[in-house]
């Protein structure tokens, strides 16, 4: 390479470009950072405002408070359970279907594919879905957090195109030895498709960890079955209701905080707690996420 001084407009362009990108990255990172420092700051002190870059009064009380809450522990177990069970089952049945559909001579194969594709364009709508779940007695039932989302058509199509690219010859010797397709699937196809499994499992797991809507609709009375996202949602909205009330009655501070822990500090601490597993694992898993996107886009 020949090194030469770049013309001034180009240098200005470089500086502006880097600054703008840094600004956007800052905007992406800052909310997470501020929640973290607020969760490490004394709740009552935080009400004075002005905590933007460093905690003023360090404390771990907020974490002690939320972790001593048995309700949160139940939620944590439920969330982990629905994420692990849901991901495992979903990836298994989705990829099994995809494998069968990747066989061109599958009897009724076209019909199954069309059945799947139709649901990407049209569904019964929210109310019939709600009534169906109710008639299946899935309300206030753990399995409502797992079963309805088990088949992802999108993932199925990605798996299918992935399996279609696996050379026939890999299976052939096993077929000659008389192995059935189920054995071939678990012994040969799954091991050679690990990158696809890793990427799609991660997407599925993050989706289940973050999903809040089904619990809001279908977990009504069983507090112990509430996933973490629902708990956070309900705390956020209780607080906002209290704040509204304070504003309306014009009696700010009428609700005396008994300790140094405020509802607002509980909220941010919960936000950090819920997002921590994803954010901590994310840098190590990033390449799989990117791979997942590419898998999907190749198929289009």
């Amino acid at each position, binding site marked *: 390479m020949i090194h030469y001084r770049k013309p001034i407009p180009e240098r200005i362009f470089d500086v502006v470009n880097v600054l703008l990108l840094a600004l956007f990255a800052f905007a992406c990172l800052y909310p997470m950072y501020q929640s973290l420092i607020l969760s490490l700051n004394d709740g009552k002190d935080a009400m004075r*405002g002005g905590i933007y870059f460093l905690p003023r009064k360090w404390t771990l009380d907020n974490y002690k408070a939320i972790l001593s809450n048995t309700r949160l522990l139940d939620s944590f177990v439920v969330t982990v359970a629905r994420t692990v069970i849901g991901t495992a089952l979903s990836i298994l*049945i989705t990829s099994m279907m995809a494998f069968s559909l990747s066989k061109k001579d599958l009897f009724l194969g076209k019909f199954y594919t069309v059945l*799947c594709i139709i649901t990407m364009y049209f569904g*019964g709508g929210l109310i019939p879905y709600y009534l169906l779940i109710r008639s299946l007695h899935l309300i206030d039932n753990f399995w409502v957090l797992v079963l309805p989302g088990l088949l992802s058509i999108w993932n199925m199509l990605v798996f299918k195109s992935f399996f279609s690219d696996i050379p026939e010859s890999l299976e052939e010797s096993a077929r000659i030895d008389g192995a059935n397709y189920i054995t071939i699937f678990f012994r040969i196809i799954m091991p050679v498709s690990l990158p696809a499994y890793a990427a799609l499992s991660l997407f599925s797991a993050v989706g289940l960890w973050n999903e809040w809507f089904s619990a809001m609709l279908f977990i009504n009375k069983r507090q112990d079955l509430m996933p973490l*996202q629902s708990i956070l949602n309900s705390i956020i*909205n209780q607080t906002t*209701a209290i704040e509204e009330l304070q504003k309306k009655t014009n009696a700010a501070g009428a609700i005396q905080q008994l300790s140094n822990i405020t509802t607002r500090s509980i909220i941010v601490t919960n936000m950090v707690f819920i997002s921590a597993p994803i954010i901590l694992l*994310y840098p190590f898993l990033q390449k799989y996420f990117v791979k997942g996107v590419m898998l999907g886009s190749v198929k289009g």
Partner: protein
Amino acid sequence: MARITNQAVTKMSRTSLLHKSTKPYAKRSRLLRQWDLQLMVLPALLVLLVFSYGPMWGISLSFRDYSIYKGLGDAPWVGFKHFQMLFGAIEFPKVMFNTIALSLLKFALGFPVPILLALMLNEVHSRYFKKAVQTITYMPNFISWVVAAGFVFMLLSRDGLVNAVLVALNIFDGPVDFMLQPEYFWTILILTGIWKGAGFGAIIYLAAISNVDPSLYEAADIDGAGRFRKIFAITIPAIQGVIVILLILSIGNILNAGFDDIFLLTNNMRNYSLTDVANTIDIYVFREGIMNRRYSYGTAAGLFKGIANAILLTTANFTAGRLGRSTLW
């Protein structure tokens, strides 16, 4: 081997179609021979039939008067009554306006950002800086909407960062309650959407850019092309195909103005100062059908949206598919 014979058998059974009696036999034997493949379809098929096709039976509710006390069997047929009520409802024009205007604005302002981001990232010299920006900007995509809404409430509260900055810059005289003023709500929705999705959305463009042959840039260097010339002559044409496809596909989503963000940023629709600007078709279905328990009416409103949406999606995907073959692959 067995596959080959399989196909041979299929072909034979097709060619011998004239002998009608052999056809069902061939089908059954094919089904039996494929018992393993068919078994592997079964679990997924069951889930699909129950949870995706199950609700479709319920569509008939929109033509009947359903009440929980009477049950489905006794619900009398009422024809298009609920649809007439829907189209005649005072709030209906506003709901449609909100849905289409909001999704168009989200699209117009949100769509270019990942493209810009990818182009800008491509111009960065430092690999570490590029990698760091990518890692950080992908992250919001993996944060749940509940937490994202929590971030918005935190940043926009009276003592939040946004108010602090705007007051310090003398743009506002005092802190503003952003979440209580309807005129800010759509801006908040659009910016939150960009915050959450732009970084991750850039991946597909970056991939298209990385496919560009580096010798093109070298040739342009020799010809004395400047920075912008290279962007417009090489990089943008490289991602043009992807842009066109994604552009067409997003037209199919014009009735999907978003649910999670609107619902959570209005405190589960309990922030009544925002009801008027937040009332999109999905929110309307939820409010009428679930919150007010007007099941038949909610089903009708949902069906209206579903049909219109299916038409839009089919048109968009068909167009994208036809173009895709000629422009992309």
